[in-house]
């Protein structure tokens, strides 16, 4: 997994609630058997509309409405966002599986109260560069919460499978107790 420490950038504002993973990456692009190359298909259908937000904003931070990434379990959604160039997302809440998937690939999903997300949207629209800093857990100066374990995994770009395999004895013990 890619490590994440901090990012400073202009931000893209997508002020919509319940953006689902079918919009982030439509199904016709799920047929690839690689992990890369999904960025060009990000929001494929929505990008056909000239006034769609992503068509005239640039940045490495995406600020979105509540319940971002609801719907399917496709990890292709965070893959596409990351491949497109986003390193962090800021939203009031996320679809559970999307949030988990993002953490697993080093794309930081920052959760902030709606009024603070609104503040960041305003500042981003005014062209301000924002900093999302995982070390001190702030986004545009607003402190956010992320559990210590997820933070450590992201900061170190940890291989979680290798970490779990260190618990081999415990897994084997569980298996023999439940055989």
């Amino acid at each position: 997994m890619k490590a994440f420490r901090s990012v400073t950038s202009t931000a893209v504002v997508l002020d919509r609630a319940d953006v689902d993973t079918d919009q982030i990456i439509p199904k016709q692009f799920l047929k690839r058997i690689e992990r890369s190359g999904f960025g060009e298909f990000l929001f494929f259908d929505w990008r056909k509309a000239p006034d769609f937000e992503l068509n005239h904003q640039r940045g490495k931070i995406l600020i979105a409405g509540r319940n971002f990434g609801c719907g399917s379990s496709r990890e292709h959604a965070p893959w596409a966002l990351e491949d497109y160039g986003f390193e962090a997302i800021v939203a009031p809440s996320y679809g559970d599986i999307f949030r988990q998937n993002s953490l697993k690939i080093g794309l930081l999903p920052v959760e902030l109260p709606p009024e603070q997300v609104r503040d960041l949207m305003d500042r981003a629209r005014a062209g301000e560069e924002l900093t999302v800093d995982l070390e001190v857990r702030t986004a545009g100066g607003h402190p956010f919460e992320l559990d210590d374990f997820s933070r450590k995994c992201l900061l170190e770009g940890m291989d979680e499978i290798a970490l779990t395999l260190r618990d081999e004895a415990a897994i084997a013990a569980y298996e023999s107790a439940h055989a």
Partner: protein
Amino acid sequence: MGRTLFEKVWDSHVVTHDEGRPDLLYVDLHLVHEVTSPQAFEGLRLAGRKVRRPDLTVATMDHNVATGDDTPADPLSQQQLDALATNCAEFDVPLHATGSGREGIVHVIGPELGLTQPGKTIVCGDSHTSTHGAFGALAFGIGTSEVEHVLATQTLSQRKPRTLRIHFEGERAPGVTAKDLVLVAIGEIGVDGGVGHVIEYAGPAIEALSMEGRMTVCNMSIEAGARAGMIAPDETTFAYLRERGVEIDERWRDLPSDPDAVFDREVVIDVATVKPQVTWGTNPGMVASIDDVVPEPADEAAERALAYMALTPGTPIREITVDRVFIGSCTNSRIEDLRAAAAVVQGRHVHPSVRAMVVPGSACVKVQAEAEGLDQVFTAAGFEWRRAGCSMCLGMNPDVLAPGERCASTSNRNFEGRQGAGGRTHLVSPEVAAATALEGHFAVPA
């Protein structure tokens, strides 16, 4: 203090519990399909790892399968199906391939093969894994990185979710189905109402449901934002399992939530007033009774949804005409769904302006339906009768809506473009889908 069903299953699967780290949970059953697994197998290969418990892993082909008898899958789909076959052979994972007779939508075959059982932890790289919770299992969808983690370690590192109980009080009116109950629940709590929670569905109206009805309810938990939905196992559960040759484990009787168990949240739904439901918008929470009208948009999201759906507020739902009807998907493609739909269309004919299709959820469901003559009922009525697969639930295969087409669908997602770019999806029960096919506009069985 008593524990909930969820807590009992969780607690009995904790492999490690350390401060400052999520629990490591043991996984009893890992279901695999072709779309979310290729990159996970590739990850194993690159790291020189193997599948720890191929005996607890089962694969099937569903999303990409072409359901027309002679239609081949397109080359990219075929590549993904072939990759699954190659990966399963290389890593010793049992595979129910297309044509094997046991293939089908992953969430239909798990229960059908007797693999889905009370008290198990079940995961799959698919958000509708929540379906299996109908048996009192803890079942949830995972992403590809987690699929790789489970393949390599048979465990998953998880933070414990909160609990939400939805209590369905009272009795269903005739014509009201499991699908209507869950759509009402999603409309009530919202598409993010269950985020961070595991839902337990309880109450007399849930107990009265068959196993297949319970699966329909649990299937749509993710549409309320909950990764998992569960129902306490009871005699209905045990009878279903016995029929599939599963021996009943007496410990399963201790799984239901204790009377003094505390849930983080509780919601009560009055079932007596529930009517057949039809979604009007672009997420499953945008739903109304069939007797209602298209609502005035309450916010910008609803406005955008109505524009996409080309609907005008105030239009009676029953007056909305459809071009297509789809009966299928892991929500409503089991034998009882097909029986219910067939009973509605028996001896009648699909409206001339409608193209309608029925896609059984598995090869076994197809065989059973054909043994009962349901295929004849459907084809005589003008429905297409197809091979098992996900089909038009997501249109990753040749079954798609054309831009602008309107569809009454028994599936679970009415997202923009879900059934084909520009397609307009209305979620309904199999009974309403069947009646709508006959009338050409939304209708309940006569």
